[in-house]
């Protein structure tokens, strides 16, 4: 079995292409083998006759294993310079340490027999990457050895950071060797230091993603909202209408925003709802308190202040604590739908896309009329809420948005 590539220690014989007794010519493909990476042909190193096949189809052999034996003329050996079996055996013997015999001491009680053994200086070790086992699967980091865990802690790595590594250990587990090689490999790519903001978002999203999250969506008509807004002196953005509708709907069905810890459901104690604000290299979520008890007009100033301080990175820790759910308006990026991820300490996040003018069929007029609609998506922790419960909440929000004067 020839060395088929770096880090490949064995390959599986797929097909034997030449029967025993057949002549083969130099460079003829005699065996087809498969590694985890590719299928390839093993070619004859010289011309001769195939006198013995040791390989079997479907079996894996280590690099260096004799797969078959060719009978070759001496001229061909001289011409191609291949190693004969005799030459290999000679080399093997030369590397073995010499043993010497000595007559055993006469001893009445006890006879010692067997070969003698001369102590030899320890052989020099040549570092090599050969012999590492072939990656057997892509099962990844389902088992982390204590050593691996220690190394990851040392480098501040999480399991999610191992997702790119193909494991070569038992059952496809990622070994420390795999990790170190991967780290060496990414050294050759351009990289930069992630900002503290990026790391904070990454940590929150990774923690949140440990839960079974599901998303449901529907579309909502915005015309009444926009018309109401036009007639206001102090204009609230669509996000605020949504925030207020969300709070009122949640007040009616607070169990949907419950937070599951073990066998305990923690209920909202106040309808404090966060608003996602895009900032440089991340996102911040300031929380507006008691949204259910404030009018739209009251909310405008509070909202503007929080958003402004968020963008200037002037939020205090208290400003971002204690929310029970979050509203995100990705319509501001011109997007029409998304699957937002709730904060790790919240069960719900409500997202709204950009308003789009659409023809909507009117039964009363028997004609298509223009309407502005947006998609509304809610992602929820499916451990706490089901699609039905989330859908009910979402439909209630849609209904509330149709009566903007009541918000």
């Amino acid at each position, binding site marked *: 079995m020839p060395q088929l590539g770096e880090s490949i220690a064995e390959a599986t014989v797929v097909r034997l292409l030449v029967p025993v007794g057949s002549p083969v010519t130099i460079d003829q493909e005699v065996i087809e083998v498969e590694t985890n990476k590719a299928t390839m042909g093993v070619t004859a190193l010289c011309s001769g006759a195939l006198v013995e096949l040791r390989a079997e189809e479907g079996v894996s052999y280590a690099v260096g294993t004799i797969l078959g034996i060719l009978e070759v003329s001496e001229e061909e050996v001289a011409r191609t310079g291949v190693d004969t079996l005799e030459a290999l055996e000679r080399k093997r013997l030369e590397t073995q340490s010499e043993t010497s015999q000595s007559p055993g001491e006469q001893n009445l009680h006890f006879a010692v027999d067997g070969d*003698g053994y001369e102590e030899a200086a320890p052989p020099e070790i040549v570092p090599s990457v050969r012999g590492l086992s072939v990656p057997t699967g892509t099962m990844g980091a389902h088992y982390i050895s204590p050593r691996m865990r220690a190394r990851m802690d040392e480098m501040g790595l999480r399991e999610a950071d191992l997702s790119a590594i193909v494991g070569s250990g038992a059952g496809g587990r990622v070994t420390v060797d795999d990790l170190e090689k991967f780290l060496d490999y990414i050294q050759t790519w351009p990289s930069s230091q992630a900002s503290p903001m990026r790391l904070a978002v990454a940590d929150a999203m990774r923690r949140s993603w440990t839960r079974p999250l599901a998303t449901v969506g529907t579309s909502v008509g915005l015309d009444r909202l926009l018309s109401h807004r036009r007639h206001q002196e102090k204009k609230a953005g669509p996000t605020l209408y949504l925030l207020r509708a969300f709070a009122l709907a949640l007040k009616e069905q607070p169990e949907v925003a419950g937070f599951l810890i073990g066998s305990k459901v923690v209920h909202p104690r106040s309808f404090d709802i966060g608003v996602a604000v895009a900032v440089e290299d991340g996102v911040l979520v300031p929380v507006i308190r008691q949204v259910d008890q404030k009018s739209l007009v009251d909310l405008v100033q509070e909202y503007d202040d929080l958003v402004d301080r968020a963008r200037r990175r002037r939020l205090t820790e208290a400003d971002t604590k204690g929310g029970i759910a979050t509203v995100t308006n990705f319509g501001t990026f011109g997007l029409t739908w998304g699957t937002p991820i709730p904060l790790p300490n919240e069960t719900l996040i409500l997202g709204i896309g950009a308003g789009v003018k659409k023809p909507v069929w009117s039964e009363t007029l028997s004609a298509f009329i223009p309407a502005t609609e947006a998609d509304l998506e809610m992602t929820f922790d499916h451990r706490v809420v089901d699609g039905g419960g989330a859908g009910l909440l979402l439909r209630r929000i849609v209904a509330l948005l149709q009566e903007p004067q009541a918000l």
Partner: protein
Amino acid sequence: MSVTYIDAIREAQETLLRDDPRVFLYGQDIAAFGGAFKATKGLAEQFPERVLDAPISEDAMAGLAIGAALQGMRPIIEMQFADFSSIAFNQIVNHAATHFYRTGMPVPITVRLPSGGTAGSGPFHSQSMEALYAHYPGVVVVTPATVADAYSMLIESVKLDDPVMYCEHKFLYRWLKAKSLQGDGLPIGRARITRMGRHATVVTYSAMVHEAVRAAERLQQESGWEIEVVDLRSVKPLDIDTVLASVARTGRLLAVGEAFPWGGVTAEVVSRVVADGFHLLEAPPMRLNSRDTPVPYHPKLWAAHRPTPESICDSLRKLLSY
């Protein structure tokens, strides 16, 4: 010109008798006959009245040695086979081991234990007793694996004030040869990296060092695995620092011993590595010992009973594939 392991033991005793008038040898048939294994050949003529035949009572031998040591002598007693030292167990573990603790007076005896198996020796002439003695506080237990260690560690044993169980391996007596008695001078209590490697650590001692090195060489040739072999040299004190440093390099541990598998030195090594170096382990630590039966007579059964390069290779492959 080469010296064998048994030559080294004989030479060490000659050196000790010559250099230290307090030293005397006491054992069954060790004087005129020169010992069952000829470890004292010619010494009785060279040092009259200091190489003494003992009655067939290991209990009496150990008791006499303890008394002589308390009177300022440095006795070396030869148990004909380590197996028979069980008859002196009370003297060694109850009296010699505790004496300094009880009275402040040390008991500098050295007990030579011809240990371990050879083909066809059977259950009473093959056993490894090191773990039993190492269990007791107050006893030093050494297990030399090389010719130079056999020499230097016997000399050091006699110089130590503590009772020392010197476990010499019978298989190595005439099988193991070296160019000279000169070694690296490592003291008792320090392990040696016999062979460097980076993929797995084999911790072993006595004759199994050589079996482990053969296994390591085989794996190197077969598939390029580089196995580190650590020779404990003395099982008590146990040089766990060297072991942990090696496991830190390799992440994988196989402890190999010729003694029976229940408890013992290999279990001690594994438990200490797990306790102090859990974060170093890339795979579950493994042990390989002889089988949990009396040592069989038949050479083929014996070869299947003890760890061999083949079984060490098998264990290592399993360890490396994890």
